[in-house]
């Protein structure tokens, strides 16, 4: 349900394939890029792509991050052997891009294009309109020459054609003959296939043909149903450096199997405060409050369960969190805090979902006692009284300090309460 980046490889491939039909066959591309992933047998690539031996090549990682040249990750003007060696050398290695560390797993290979001119085109979808930007001074430092960038916009209720003339003012007739259909076609491509951000920086013209060098694209993933057969890339790639932990991957796999929602992000496995919150909005608010009270560094996880998950799923979710939480004592020797929070549910049966959590709590009662855990519960909604009652019972049954509240208490008040109770040996 969001904007998602797609690989440059996929963006280019789809663009190259669709552009002829959006330009009346005026713009065509003949060579499709190649994607190399850990499963690719590099030496076999030339069998289907003989051009790999006939042309000089470019290789760059294709994992939704920019500034690749500056990070020394782009190989230019290489033979196939050089390209293959470059990939073998980098494949599976870690790289740090800005603050984010991750593994290199995907590389784009395409022909190297020697060029003089560098053009820039970008289209952004924004609330007021689609904005189309163009400059003849494209390249890595487009921001520094932003005054050369011309812009036109197309607002949503307008005829979705646009006049490219203002963008191409001052260019030669020959350039216009090529660039006018290219820009118009690119916009048609953008809007017909639910792109929300599209940038070619730069592209060039060689022998009266447009050659794309770098491309960045984001689509609106809710529109997948309108682009069956066009968006043929399968799953959306995860942003660079977001290799999930086994627990995150497990919760993601549960989430994919159900209509309910189960989310988990580990922030600090050594942290002292763990949360198990129902509802997307509430989960943000609980995390906010912990951070706002100055305990951000101790916040172990972010996540939520919602959409009336079954007792079984809630059990598995709770178990995952409890297993991580009880792996070791906190370095300070202080007890850990588990926040079982939530707002007032619309229709989720609170007693039902709590049954799953309680089952996991019983299973992990020894481990919880071992590392020292206090639990704070706050929840409202259908059948909440029965649910809260069960929670209180299980607390005394397994001998874990637990405080339980309903809608009479402000939603996040259990957080300051938990932090105040620190070291008091609550029961």
């Amino acid at each position, binding site marked *: *349900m*969001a*904007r998602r980046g797609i690989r440059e490889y996929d963006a280019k491939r789809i663009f190259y394939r669709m552009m002829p039909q959006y330009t009346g066959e005026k713009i065509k591309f003949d060579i499709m890029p190649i994607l190399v992933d850990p499963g690719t047998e590099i030496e076999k690539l030339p069998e289907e792509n003989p051009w790999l031996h006939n042309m000089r090549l470019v290789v760059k990682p294709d994992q939704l991050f920019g500034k690749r040249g500056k990070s020394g990750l782009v190989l230019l003007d290489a033979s196939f052997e050089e390209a293959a060696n470059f990939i073998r050398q980098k494949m599976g290695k870690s790289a740090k891009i*800005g*603050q*984010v560390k991750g593994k290199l797993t995907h590389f784009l290979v395409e022909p190297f294009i020697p060029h003089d001119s560098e053009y820039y085109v970008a289209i952004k*979808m924004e*609330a007021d309109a689609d904005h189309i930007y163009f400059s003849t001074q494209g390249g890595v430092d487009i921001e520094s020459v932003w005054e050369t960038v011309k812009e036109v916009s197309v607002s*949503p*209720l307008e005829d979705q054609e646009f006049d490219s003339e203002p963008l191409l003012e001052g260019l030669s007739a020959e350039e216009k003959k090529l660039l006018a259909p290219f820009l118009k076609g690119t916009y048609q491509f953008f*809007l017909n296939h*639910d792109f*929300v951000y599209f940038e070619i920086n730069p592209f060039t013209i060689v022998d009266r043909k447009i050659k794309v060098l770098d491309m960045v694209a984001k689509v*609106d993933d*809710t*529109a997948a*149903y*309108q682009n069956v057969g066009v968006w043929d890339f399968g799953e959306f790639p995860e*942003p660079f*450096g*977001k290799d999930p932990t086994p627990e995150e991957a497990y919760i993601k796999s549960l989430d994919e199997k159900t209509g309910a*929602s189960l*989310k988990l*992000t580990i*922030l600090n496995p050594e942290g002292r405060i763990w949360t198990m919150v129902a*509802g*997307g*909005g*509430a*989960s*943000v*608010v609980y*995390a*906010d*409050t912990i*951070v*706002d*009270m100055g305990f*951000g*560094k101790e*916040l172990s996880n*972010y996540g*939520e369960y*919602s959409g009336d998950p079954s007792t079984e799923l809630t059990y598995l979710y709770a178990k995952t969190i409890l297993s991580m939480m009880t792996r070791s004592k906190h370095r300070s020797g202080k007890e850990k805090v588990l926040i079982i929070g939530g*707002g*007032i*549910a*619309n*229709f989720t049966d609170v007693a039902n979902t709590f049954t799953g959590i309680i089952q996991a709590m019983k299973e992990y009662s020894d481990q919880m006692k071992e590392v020292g855990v206090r639990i704070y519960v706050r929840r*409202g*909604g*259908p*059948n909440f009284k029965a649910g809260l009652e069960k929670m209180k019972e299980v607390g005394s049954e397994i001998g874990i300090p637990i405080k339980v509240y309903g*809608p009479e208490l*402000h*939603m*996040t*008040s259990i*957080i*300051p309460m938990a932090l105040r109770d620190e070291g008091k040996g609550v029961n």
Partner: protein
Amino acid sequence: MEPYLLFSRDTRSIVYNMQTKAVQRMLDFDYLSGREKPSVAAIVNPGNSGTHKAHWGKGEVLIPIYPTIQTATDANGDIDVMVNFASFRSAYATTKEALLNKQIRVVAVIAEGVPERKARELAHLSKKLKKIIIGPATVGAIGAGAFKVGNTGGTIENIREQKLYRRGSVGLVTKSGGLLNEMFNIVSHNTDGIFEGVAIGGDKYPGSSLIDHLLRYEANPKIKIMVALGELGGDEEYKVVEAVNKGLLTKPIVFWVMGTCSKMFPAGVQFGHAGAKAGAEAETADAKNKTLKKAGVIVPHSFDTLGEEIARTFIKLKDEGKITPIEEPRNVPNIPMDYADALKRGIIRKPTSFISTVADDRGEEVNYGGYPISEIVHSGGKIGDVISLLWFGRRFPKWATDFMEMALMIVADHGPAVSGAHNAIIASRAGKDLISCLCSGLLTIGPRFGGAIDDCAKYMSDAFRRGIVPRDFVKEMKDKNVKIPGIGHRVKSLENPDGRVTLLIEYARKNFPRTDLLDFALGVQTVTTQKKSNLILNVDGTIGVLMVDMLRGVGHYNDEEVRNIVNLGYLNGFFVLGRSIGLIGHALDQKRMGERLYRHPWEDILYMVERKE
């Protein structure tokens, strides 16, 4: 109605799609609020017409169903709101149609996952037409005591608890639909209650935004305090800042922007909502909260003190005399709990109206007599096992189920000339459907046709039970002038025995633990064949007496129980079931051959009707 109001107590709406639970929740809210008419004037169920029956307090009302939005508004001049439950695929087209409809003023779009480009077009279109969209991806909105969109506000207990059935002084708008109830809770704990609450939905391009609703609340003299819950990502909150700075928003606003925790996260975390991702620094919750506070908006230190800030603001206004005390409505009616709900919670009980001891379809898989069908099939079960489970509620031994199958095979057909098959054939040739043909054939089964199995078993076992000898039984029957059922064959005799009978008897002698009644019947045969050689125990009689022997032999029943089983008509069941195979065969045979309507020839009928003068 004033342009700053979304809803009044007279607002009437269309609910698009058959969302009967949501309709009921809207009606319950209406009733609780003391509305005169239900707020749902029509349901649009694409392509269908009719009526939907819903509860109205303790009574019931009918809500008309229309095939299109246009027919619904044409028939109901008072409709000006549509609650759109169309799927994400059709939400765009239906919302657009509603916007272009002259009557409709407000559309709430519930669907999640409407493509951004379509949602953006709808937002622009509604502004151009001076209409209001709430959503997409929203739970809805509520005008306290006036109108409730769909499932907003949760259960009726919650609505009662938070006094949403009457107007307070607070205008609420939130990005988060999931927290709408919680916000109602916070507002109702700390003020005199909600006047109106809207969840604008989590999409990137909501049809109406925080600022749109705050400007409406500003214009509404009944609203004294505005409460808003924003979110990281986007720039909507800055529009509020701008409006405050321009003096367009002058009433106290208590505002909190969610997502202050994002700084603890690695880059690129997408929160639940499509719009909830901070690109630039200005889109972070911290930056927004700070800017709002600077503009004079009341921003708590964290969500935790949001309630306190709201309470403080309310008390201040009250002290200044700006809040008119609310007169609580008297006699807020009770909404009876739904039967299904009460049952689930174990509050009520009621004797059941039906019993089933043989099959149960409630679990993952239907089970016959306690065994899931797949288990029966896996364990090599056949139709005989299914019959024993569904007719007798228990598993019979293999010798018994095999015998039942043999009986079914033997009675399956007796050619086209007998009553049942003949009727089936005639019906089939009259162009009737298969089931009519089958029933036509089955309806001939009774005392004269096909009843011998049952009758033979009854008479013979009665005699056997009384302990009389075969000769006395034959005499008794003769005295009563009753032909012994199951005795006699058209052509077969002792010397020329019926192969089917021989087979059944051999099987029984070899496999049954006992054959008492068969032995009795054969004793009867000895007596009757002395009179005439074709008065043998025929196939019907053999099946009848062997069924009784089988029941006595499976070890579950005493004599009395066996008699009861026979009296209930079980044995007839075997004939009906088996013969159905043949009847279906004959009916289909005629259809396959394309046989035409049968008319019996005149010359074959003796007409004895006297012509009357």
